[in-house]
């Protein structure tokens, strides 16, 4: 039923859209945007504000995701093997660890490996470790990487049950924090986006309402001359879309400049813990999101006004 009504509306709307009319619609819409300059500016400004805040959240969200992915990829669980277990049993333990479905890889680090690693780390002072060769204080361990970090708790328990495992290092708290932040940013940005879109829609609706009012004589004449409803509506809808698109382009430029500035600032800090998404990898996402949302906000805003104030 709903779909049927929608189809009829779309068909009627589209049949009015002939090339000769289209030129008229766009010209009229642009003229109206300029004529109601102040209100248009205000509407564009609100669209820009909304999209900027949305962009900010998107940028933060994407990068928190990106960084947490990096941290997750690095996050490994350390499984320490009981000192009493003879080396012959290690392949058996390896097998059991790798058998756990959530384990993506398990690297064996023997006592000797650990000592050698320390030696390289100490570099010139490595001689300090010389005496340890025969009485190695390090313990054999595994570096275990997980497939899905969210199931880390269960995997940790399973690992602890393996015979010969003395201890399982637990990074659960850190992982939980990362997951919480990511989810928080995700839901937060969705809600803010919804809220700001609604605000923009109403401000654009108001602008279009004023545009309709400013052109009431024209609309009256159009009706008496025999213009179809859609012929009268289209210029206003296009006007809303123009406002939305101009707003989204301005917001895109501002967010681009801001993002690049942030990247430069961060890279000058020389943090090698993690990196941010490059501008090249995010700009098309920003562009499409902004333009789609801007167009939608504009179209819905003017559509609202059409229903209420343009009794044609």
């Amino acid at each position, binding site marked *: 039923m709903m779909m049927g009504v929608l189809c009829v509306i779309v068909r009627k709307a589209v049949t009015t859209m*002939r090339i*000769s009319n289209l030129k008229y619609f766009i010209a009229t819409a642009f003229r109206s945007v300029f004529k109601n300059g102040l209100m248009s500016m205000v509407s564009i400004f609100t669209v820009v504000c909304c999209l900027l805040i949305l962009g900010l959240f998107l940028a933060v969200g994407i990068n928190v995701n990106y960084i947490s992915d990096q941290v997750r990829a690095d996050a490994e669980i350390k499984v320490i093997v009981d000192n009493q277990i003879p080396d012959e049993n290690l392949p058996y333990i390896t097998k059991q660890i790798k058998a756990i479905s959530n384990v993506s890889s398990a690297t064996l680090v023997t006592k000797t490996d650990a000592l050698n690693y320390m030696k390289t780390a100490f570099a010139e002072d490595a001689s300090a470790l010389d005496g340890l060769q025969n009485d190695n204080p390090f313990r054999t361990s595994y570096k275990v990487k997980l497939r899905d970090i969210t199931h880390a708790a269960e995997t940790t328990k399973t690992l602890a049950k393996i015979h010969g495992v003395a201890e399982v290092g637990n990074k659960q708290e850190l992982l939980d924090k990362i997951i919480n932040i990511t989810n928080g940013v995700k839901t937060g940005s969705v809600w803010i986006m919804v809220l700001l879109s609604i605000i923009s829609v109403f401000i654009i609706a108001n602008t279009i309402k004023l545009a309709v009012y400013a052109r009431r004589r024209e609309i009256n*004449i159009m*009706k008496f*001359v*025999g*213009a179809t*409803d859609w*012929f009268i509506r289209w210029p206003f809808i296009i006007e809303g879309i123009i406002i939305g698109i101009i707003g989204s382009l301005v917001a895109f430029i501002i967010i681009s400049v801001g993002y690049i500035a942030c990247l430069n600032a961060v890279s000058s800090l020389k943090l090698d813990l993690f990196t941010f998404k490059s501008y090249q990898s995010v700009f098309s996402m920003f562009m499409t999101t902004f333009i789609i949302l801007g167009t939608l906000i504009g179209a819905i805003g003017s559509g609202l006004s059409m229903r209420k104030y343009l009794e044609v």
Partner: protein
Amino acid sequence: MIEFVDVCKTYEDNDTVALSHVSFKVQKGEFVFVVGPSGSGKSTLAKLLMYEQTPTSGKIYINDYKVHELTKQEVPYLRRSMGVVFQDFRLLPDRTIYENIQFAMQVVGASTREIRRRIPTVLSAVGLTQKAHAYPRQLSGGEQQRVSLARALANKPPLIIADEPTANLNPATALEIVEILESINDRGTTVIMATHAKDIVNKFRKRVIAIDDGRIVRDCEKGCYDDED
């Protein structure tokens, strides 16, 4: 061309009976004055013709449209079949004469070619070729009304409806406007003009439908405003 069958119109907001049981016919090519004092219902009649109002009961046929059962989608097409002229001209002040007429053609989807050909023709029909690029405020009232006549003619309607077209004009100018309407009528267009200008109605000797208190009190060929005839 036009037929009213037992048409009644009651305004719901104040329960006024504007027209009661009005029936008449207008043939193609006729020139009809609808006369009556203000508040008689002649303005309501004009509004029914333009579909600015819909009848409370009865049937109205205009140019093959059953106006009483018109759907919302058909309204624009009914209106394209008539040219309308108002007392207050209704021109767009920020556009030239040419653009005003162009606008009326654009909204019904005329091509640029058609528009370019048609506008000089209608401007010369009302004698305003020289003023094509003037703005409405630069014209006299009579000239402005001639522009709105040209606009009404632009889409070649078979019917022109003029609601008190001379009410804001001085007698000489008013006469000019009706003369133009007459010449339009001579070329085959049906003209219906609502007016209370006695002298004009008496001078032109056309069919007169007189309305008083919402009823047709008189309908005569080559009639006069008052009923000595």
